[in-house]
């Protein structure tokens, strides 16, 4: 069977892949967008029910598609995001091939060969926009958790109704961990939250959404080549934020108020017991210091003369438990909110570093004609958010187009 030829293949029909399609179409570059499932697949199938975007609606814009609904200060549900991306696909008229999983991508003379469920493709350039969060990451000691304790990742978790009786140990205090911990505690279960390094933010600062400050003050515009420790900045956990009508802050103090028990980072399983770090106070003080520095930066940007809006330091319990017997029945379920990584199992091009991360310079991958979109801090701090894709996609497609001449 002869391979189909196309100038450019975009891998993934999420907001990033579709944004690439938008700019490719604008430059009349023939292309196809491969999608393993449906458009916005991960928003449909790999998110829990109550999830809302961290960014307010007015900030959740895509190239050529501003928010025009009735609630600019609200936060979209996962279903609404899927709907938005669907509309975006229609506006872009993206040539999406759904249910077409990529199984192998390799280098050929003058381009790339892509093997898919629907046959072979030959392309001069490829844009990898398959997402940064395809596989939940769990620590190796998860295998040592006794079989009586159920283990879930955020990909499996849907709602409290699905979680059986007994206490729940939520591991990780990023946006995912704090949201799931709060929801389960409110449902009547006792939740223990294991906290490592985290990013604390108030939902509102001086009567505006904290993300308004990020956007307006230029924090999000910081470029990847201006960031002091890029590696660290790209690995930063998502900030402790939740979207909702009340625009509430969901930090560790809010969780303590709800009755969630805080413990340190889960370091190991020994003799059927979970052992937690005694370093909780340190990770909390690091998060408090960084939050205050960020807020002080907002004030400085705004040349605000009013005194600093004081936010109470994280209340760390005088004593946290260092050990939890996993066989005692106290914990029925462990939920690993310990991060995600991209899935590059189909990638036969040597562009991954020793940790399995894609080597790229602002989206230009270390192999001619290969590009990436939709990764954290790809080109700017705003890359992570829906509205960060426009500039990234424009740049990447410009670079790609220049390579075709």
């Amino acid at each position, binding site marked *: 069977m002869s391979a189909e030829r196309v100038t450019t293949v975009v891998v993934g029909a999420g907001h990033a892949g579709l944004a690439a399609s938008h700019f490719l179409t604008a430059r009349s570059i023939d292309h196809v967008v491969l999608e393993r499932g449906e458009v916005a697949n991960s928003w449909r199938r790999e998110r829990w029910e109550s999830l809302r975007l961290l960014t307010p609606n007015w900030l959740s814009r895509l190239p050529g598609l501003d928010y025009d609904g009735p609630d600019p200060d609200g936060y979209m549900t996962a279903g609404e995001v899927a709907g938005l991306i669907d509309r975006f696909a229609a506006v872009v008229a993206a040539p999406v091939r759904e249910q077409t999983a990529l199984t192998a991508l390799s280098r050929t003379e003058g381009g790339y060969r892509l093997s898919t469920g629907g046959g072979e493709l030959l392309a001069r350039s490829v844009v990898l926009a398959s997402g940064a969060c395809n596989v939940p990451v769990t620590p190796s000691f998860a295998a040592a958790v006794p079989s009586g304790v159920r283990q879930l990742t955020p990909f499996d978790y849907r709602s409290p109704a699905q979680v059986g009786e007994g206490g729940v140990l939520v591991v990780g205090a990023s946006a995912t961990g704090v949201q799931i911990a709060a929801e389960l505690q409110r449902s009547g279960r006792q939740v223990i939250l294991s906290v490592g390094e985290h990013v604390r933010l108030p939902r509102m600062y001086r009567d505006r959404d904290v993300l308004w400050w990020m956007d307006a003050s230029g924090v999000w515009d910081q470029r990847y080549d201006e960031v002091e420790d890029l590696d660290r900045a790209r690995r930063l956990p998502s900030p402790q934020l939740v979207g909702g009508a009340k625009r509430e802050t969901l930090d560790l103090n809010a969780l303590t108020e709800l009755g969630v028990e805080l413990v*340190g980072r889960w370091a*190991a399983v020994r003799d059927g017991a979970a*052992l937690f770090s*005694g*370093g909780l106070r*340190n990770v909390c003080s690091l998060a408090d*210091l960084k939050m205050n520095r960020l807020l002080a930066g907002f004030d400085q940007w705004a040349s605000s003369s009013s005194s600093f809006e004081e936010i109470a330091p994280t209340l760390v319990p005088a*004593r946290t438990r260092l050990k939890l017997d996993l066989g005692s029945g106290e914990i029925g379920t462990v939920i690993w909110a310990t991060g995600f990584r991209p899935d590059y199992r189909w990638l036969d091009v040597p562009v991954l570093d020793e940790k399995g991360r894609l080597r790229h310079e602002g989206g230009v991958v270390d192999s001619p004609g290969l590009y990436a979109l939709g990764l954290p801090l790809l080109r700017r701090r705003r890359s992570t958010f829906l509205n960060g894709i426009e500039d990234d996609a424009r740049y990447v497609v410009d670079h790609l187009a220049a390579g075709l001449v």
Partner: protein
Amino acid sequence: MTTIDNGVNVQALLDAREVLKGAPEAAQFTWRASSKWTRGVHSTTTIEKFFGLGQEQTHKAQTEYASDHPAVFAAEDNGITPIEYLLVGLAGCLTAGVASVAQNRGIQLRSVEATVEGNHDIRGILGADSDIRNGYNDIKVTFHIDADASKEEIEAIVAQSQKRSAVFDALTNPTDVTVEVA
């Protein structure tokens, strides 16, 4: 701009970090101590050689540390107790971290003093109550730092020092320890 000097060669450390990123095998160090029992609960621990950067290394001089227990433990007090050495290690490590981070951030230190207190319920080691752990229940480090910096900057230095401290990590996280008879 005034040049600050806390006596830490931060550039060498930053250079080493870059080099070791591409040479993980050279970053594997083994620190060694060997001890000899004297009499009673008194022993002497010697430290001289270690392994690192792919080869055997030797300290400039061999150092001996005496361990004993105080008279209230019915011992002769020929040296500090082993668990006090953990406090020595923690204070030394955090203070080194404070100096390094301050140097790296361009902050001149004038004085750094740390007081370390470890609360220890000795009923654990005596086997008097099996619910009580053998080690410290908690440890508190109090820093008094005089530097050309705001209180917030000093707090940030101390927090960062903990984040990078080998001894803080060893005390707060479980470590796999094997003890055997050769």
